[in-house]
């Protein structure tokens, strides 16, 4: 019986994903200040990258999906940046719903 192609490398990716899950869950139990958020975000990005690169062939495939994804994330970044302008100037004009 032959093994499924990529079996070993995919299991390696899966183990890495579970290790990252353990890291993010475990670190949330330790007070690290701003690093808690930084670790959670970095782990999420790393997990997404592992899935996208190895399971979705984002890196090894043709360039079009990478272009499409870059544009989508870019537009999302614009949305976040413009919408956050309210928070960034909220010391000048406090929003009625703000409890700061």
């Amino acid at each position, binding site marked *: 019986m032959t093994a499924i*192609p990529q079996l070993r490398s995919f299991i390696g990716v899966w183990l890495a994903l579970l290790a990252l899950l353990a890291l993010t869950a475990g670190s*949330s139990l330790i007070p690290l200040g701003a690093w808690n958020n930084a670790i959670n975000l970095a782990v999420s990005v790393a997990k997404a990258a592992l899935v996208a690169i190895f399971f979705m062939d984002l890196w090894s495939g043709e360039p079009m999906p990478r272009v499409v994804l870059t544009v989508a994330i870019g537009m999302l970044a614009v949305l976040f940046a413009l919408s956050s302008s309210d928070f960034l100037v909220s010391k000048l004009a406090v929003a009625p719903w703000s409890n700061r």
Partner: protein
Amino acid sequence: MSSAVELGESYVAIEQQRQAQRAGLWVFLATEVLFFGPLFLAYVQGRLYQHAAFVQGSHHTDLLLGSINTAVLLTSSLTMALAIEAAKASMIRHARWLLLGTAILGTAFLAIKGAEYHHDWEEGLVPGLRFTSAEPSAGVELFFWLYFAMTGVHAIHLFIAIGLVLWAAISRVTRKPTSMRLPLIGLYWHFVDIIWVFLYPLLYLLERYR
């Protein structure tokens, strides 16, 4: 029935058709990124303005069940990826079993999520329908509104993905090693997994050391 993939009218080569189909699905995923994006934006805004209430809300979620569910979905991505490789290598039985396993893992995720929802309902944490939390706070209510909106929309996506995977498991696509249908379903499955990867720390992991 032939195992070869038919070439569509608008294509000159199978590889061109494959790339166009992949690009098309990625464009769909881009719209999905921008569909979920505003919910994440709402979360970021809520947390910037109501940080303490969001931490309070997050402590009402079940860390253990949320973490188990994350592991379940990550594992389902492994079985999905292996199913596609098996189908490509004409290992039809393997592909079918792996697809069935993927669907079972997806269903397990929904079952665990349902148990969490039930608990949230009992605790009175459902904004609009039953919000009787002991700490009445607009911020906590906002957190739970976003919690249900984000996990609910995610669950609907997963429900659809389970349907597609089950269809693939019983249909003939596993017999066509060059067909793009299964890889495209796989892209959608992995995308739904990735959305959860970002939801999990935002909803479950806020200042758990307290």
